[in-house]
């Protein structure tokens, strides 16, 4: 006998909710425990970054970029300063380029640590969270040694780096590189190897290759759907063409591969850092740039591979000290499109898991 008079439950999740990773809100339609419709609501963290840039000088805007994807702030600095450098035609010293790569890849590892940790936490596994945070702490310590701050590092300048890393930085980096393989083993043991975790990750939230391409998904999520696309290889910026590294691609299209691909990327990042530490030359860390930055009239677009996806800056200059228009193309914002399509039909617990594996940072979504 069919049950009559049942009703859809409309559940408001967020903006204050344990697993919406910041200020994200979704209105979820539920049929029992099954999700039938999701309406995402964003904008709770909107600070008007793009408009703020118009009333700041070019250098003044660098600290603001830290607040975009606050889990990988060197990447945001990097994308912005490189865009301005491209506009001005500045050549950055070799040593600064190597330092940028080292800090960028460290930030990628730290960001992926958070992603894996928060995925585990969203599954109710608190212990993996502490393991990953323990190791991420060492990266933040290295940031602190160099720039003085841990999360919003503001580590790059137009034309170079803010400071030379201190003497104790290099031994700390070396010991991190040495310990990392063992740490990764531990993560497999505590989380990925677990039967329950695998049952909840595998074949959940399928994002087919075609759909991923059509939604212009970028970053690890796209590569977990079997598309070999990475800005570092597709359009090499900085000095990435000098390093020998692979772009990890997985074809599972599911939550498990979206999580595991982060582990693969950590491995590749470690490889890049090892090469950078080996090859880094001596020399200055700042190019000769004028005190007042006045790029020529024109417009420029530049993109980098952020841990979350492709991060692009589009800057229009009118020849004054302030940009006339700044537009930010952030990975998380565009990747968030997949949630209402992919998560429908799964259980409410899977919705949380799928959202966790997307690794959206709301600072970058709302800008």
């Amino acid at each position: 006998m069919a049950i009559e008079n049942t009703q859809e439950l409309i559940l408001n999740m967020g903006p204050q909710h344990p697993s919406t990773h910041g200020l994200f809100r979704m209105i979820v339609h539920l049929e029992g425990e099954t999700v039938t419709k999701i309406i995402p609501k964003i904008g709770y963290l909107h600070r008007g970054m793009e408009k703020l840039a118009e009333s700041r000088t070019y250098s003044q805007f660098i600290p603001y970029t830290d607040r975009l994807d606050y889990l990988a702030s060197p990447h945001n600095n990097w994308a912005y300063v490189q865009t301005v450098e491209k506009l001005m035609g500045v050549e950055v010293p070799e040593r600064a380029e190597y330092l940028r790569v080292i800090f960028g890849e460290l930030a990628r590892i730290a960001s992926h640590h958070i992603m894996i940790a928060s995925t585990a936490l969203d599954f109710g596994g608190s212990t993996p969270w502490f393991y990953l945070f323990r190791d991420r702490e060492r990266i933040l310590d290295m940031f602190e040694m160099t720039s003085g701050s841990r999360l919003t590092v503001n580590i790059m300048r137009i034309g170079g780096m803010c400071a030379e890393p201190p003497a104790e930085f290099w031994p700390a980096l070396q010991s991190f590189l040495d310990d990392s393989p063992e740490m990764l083993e531990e993560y497999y043991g505590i989380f990925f190897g677990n039967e329950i975790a695998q049952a909840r990750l595998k074949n959940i939230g399928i994002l087919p290759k075609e759909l991923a391409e059509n939604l212009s998904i970028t970053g690890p999520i796209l590569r977990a759907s079997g598309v070999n696309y990475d800005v570092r290889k597709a359009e090499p910026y900085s000095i990435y063409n000098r390093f020998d590294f692979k772009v990890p691609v997985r074809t599972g299209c599911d939550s498990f591969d979206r999580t595991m691909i982060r582990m693969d990327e950590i491995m590749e990042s470690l490889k890049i850092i090892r090469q950078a530490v080996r090859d880094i030359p001596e020399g200055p860390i700042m190019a000769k740039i004028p005190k007042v930055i006045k790029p020529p009239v024109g417009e420029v677009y530049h993109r980098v591979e952020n841990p979350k996806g492709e991060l692009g800056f589009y800057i229009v200059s009118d020849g004054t000290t302030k940009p006339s228009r700044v537009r930010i193309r952030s990975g998380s914002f565009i990747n968030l499109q997949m949630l209402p399509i992919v998560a429908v039909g799964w259980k409410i617990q899977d919705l949380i898991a799928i959202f966790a594996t997307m690794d959206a940072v709301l600072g970058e979504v709302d800008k």
Partner: protein
Amino acid sequence: METLNNLFLIIAAAIRGLFTDPYSFWADLTMSIIGCVMVIIIIFLNIFVLSIMERKIAAYIAQRVGPIRLGPRGWFQALGDGLKLAGKEDVIPAGADRLIFKIAPIIIFSVPIMALGVIPYGKGMAPINLDLGIFYYFAITSISTLGFFMGGWGSNSKYSLLGGMRAVAQMISYEIPLLLSLLGVVMISQSFNLGVIVEAQKSVPFIFLQPLAFVIFLIAGMAEANRAPFDLVEGEQELVAGPFTEYSGFRHGLFWIGEYSNLLLLAAMTTTVFLGGWHGPAFLPGWVWFWLKVGSVIFFAMWARWTFPRLRIDHLMHLSWKILLPLSILNIILTGLGIYIYRLAMGG
């Protein structure tokens, strides 16, 4: 040693001796009241021990130090937690069904008190010695499902309702394998009385005779007590706190007490039925052995909680109906065959 072993029995006899007729109605009533008070004392002591134990074990597993500020090495942290909860404002949501909302935590809290009353803590030390001990245990613990659902329904919150829904689905499903897994033990010991069951384990604990039932009982028991990885009812990451979402202050504290008491109940029941209760080498009194065994079961539950992620609701149902239930029925058949062969061999 003998005195220490029978310490509580001697005290009980002394109290009975104060009455002119030691076996009159009034003497029995007094002893029952003292028994109940003792159970409540056990429950409150248990909360203070378990909550600090849980924090320290969690910290140890997650490579932290845990609470260290309050008291020596942070051992008074539980006291601080309790005072904090008691001092908080008691909020009842505007749309709540006030009566149901208020009764729910009381039900959750009173179930473990009633159930712990039949556990034999030592030889002859069951506060209430029931012939249908196991039957009573199941009858009483089923009521706690009702408490969870009342909390979920009475709060008039969607998260609470989903939590209450999960509580009913989960706890009713797991009650069946839980009950069936104990039937093997009852068949061997030929009694529902928990004291007799412990007595039957004098030479060999039932964990060795009924290993399958032990595993089923522990898994289903953890699910029944809503311990992680089966804590879907609370489901912090998706349901905030399930049926407890809208509770604050001491009402929330009662749920908290209920949760730890259920864990104690599970451990006490596992000890009584499978680990041989108060039996143990004679260099320690029986009741010390009982508590040591209870402690190790609790440690196991905490270890599991801080290691495993949470199951999904349909996997949970799958585990109960498709795996644990057939296995527990298989266990009954195997036990029956075993007893039959044993009797044939013994020439009975």
